[in-house]
């Protein structure tokens, strides 16, 4: 008997898989969004610590970066997944009273994802901080701004702008990274596909459908960031001079 291409890959089946996967997109985005918040806050913190070469904290931050970049995301997820409950149990044995089962799987996942991404985002931030003109910092200081004010009003806004392309990459990385969260038992789009394919053995159609979905999300995010970047960028052309 002849085998047809559609025996291996049915386009029709692939299309019909997509709506089932799309239903779980909110979980994927929620996970990516929460991880993004973690990565931005921690990444900025690490970047400022390293930019200011804060004593004691700076070498700790550097060691953290090395660890995060030197180990696979998947392994980190497993360590978080099994490690955090283990640590909590130790606390409990000391008299704390935390119900380990109450912590949602989501928390392990977005924390692990966020920390991992923070290691990369922090380098984006640090480069951006270092690109802020020292003269502008001096001008702001000479006005009588405290260092905190200079940081808030001059350094961070300018650095954020410089960091936008890097932040865009980081968001895209996180969205793709959420597919690993299936290993923590979170039913996002990748896990959803495993479940469906487990029933009809149509793995290939499922994975191609998944690829299309991730790709489209990425394209949309890129478009959004392009718009944001444009909004922040100083226009090429000067405004016309107002009549006085």
């Amino acid at each position: 008997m002849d085998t047809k291409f559609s025996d291996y890959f049915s386009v029709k089946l692939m299309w019909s898989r997509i709506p089932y996967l799309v239903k779980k997109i909110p979980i994927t985005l929620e996970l990516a969004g929460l991880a993004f918040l973690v990565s931005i806050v921690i990444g900025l913190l690490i970047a400022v610590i390293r930019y200011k070469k804060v004593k004691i904290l700076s070498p700790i931050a550097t060691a953290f970066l090395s660890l995060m970049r030197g180990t696979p995301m998947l392994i980190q997820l497993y360590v978080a997944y099994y490690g955090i409950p283990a640590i909590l149990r130790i606390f409990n044995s000391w008299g704390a009273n935390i119900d380990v089962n109450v912590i949602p799987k989501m928390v392990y996942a977005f924390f692990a994802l966020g920390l991992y991404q923070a290691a990369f985002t922090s380098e984006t931030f640090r480069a951006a901080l270092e690109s802020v003109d020292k003269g502008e910092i001096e001008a702001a200081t000479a006005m009588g701004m405290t260092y905190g004010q200079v940081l808030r009003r001059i350094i961070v806004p300018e650095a954020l702008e410089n960091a936008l392309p890097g932040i865009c990459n980081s968001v895209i990385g996180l969205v793709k990274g959420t597919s690993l969260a299936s290993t923590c038992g979170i039913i996002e789009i990748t896990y959803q596909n495993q479940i469906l394919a487990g029933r009809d053995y149509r793995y290939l159609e499922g994975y191609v459908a998944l690829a299309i979905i991730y790709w489209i999300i990425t394209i949309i995010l890129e478009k959004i960031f392009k718009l944001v970047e444009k909004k922040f960028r100083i226009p090429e052309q000067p405004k016309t001079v107002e009549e006085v």
Partner: protein
Amino acid sequence: MAILELKDIHKSFQDNVVLDGINLSVNKGDIVGIVGPSGTGKSTLLRSINLLERPEQGEIRFEDITLNLPLKGKERKSVTALRKRIGMVFQKFYLFEHKTALQNVMEGLITVQKKPKKETEQIALDALEKVGLKAWKNHYPKHMSGGQQPRVAIARTLAMKPDIILLDEPTSALDPELVTEVLTTIKAIAEQGYTMLLVSHEMDFVSKISNRVLFLDGGKIIEDGTPEEVFRHPKSDRAKEFFDKMNKLKEPEFFI
């Protein structure tokens, strides 16, 4: 009455002694021109007054604020208090590139002086008007000419109503044809009774607007007097040589 007093200020960079015991007392309303060869510490002197540089030794007194150097932890607050009342215009202006001219001028009023937004905008517009750039308020620095940028920097400083304005070679980064517009702006401010310390190589200009000129060399003030005294009748050979050289540059054979 002296508004600013420096006593025995010493500042070195590694083993390069740049300020070697500066004593200076500036009266309210003084326009003090500071001249001298490049690399003698004119910028360092201005930057020491608002503590952008940290001298190792000496005392800075500005009205009711007294700072004994080197600074101790508690005096950090006084440094900020002092900076709030001393304005500075830098050689390279250091405008906030990501802010418009108006936002540049408003920044200090909002963040440092905590004035209400509405009032801030009016003050900033007035300051821009004084330097003739009100119509350019929505322009970013990169869209402004070399002559306009220092004027925005001057407006940014003026808007804060500082008690003293420090100007560090505000025209030396400019093309010759742009110098006049900036000098005109500075002259207008000087005539309003501001206290100013002006480092400049524009000897004619310094001589015209200052009531007092300092000649700095080797980390010390070696001439201190009226423009007439310092430029026409310098006591030291170093100053004489320097002015001779400057004058030679202006002689006709150097114009082609």
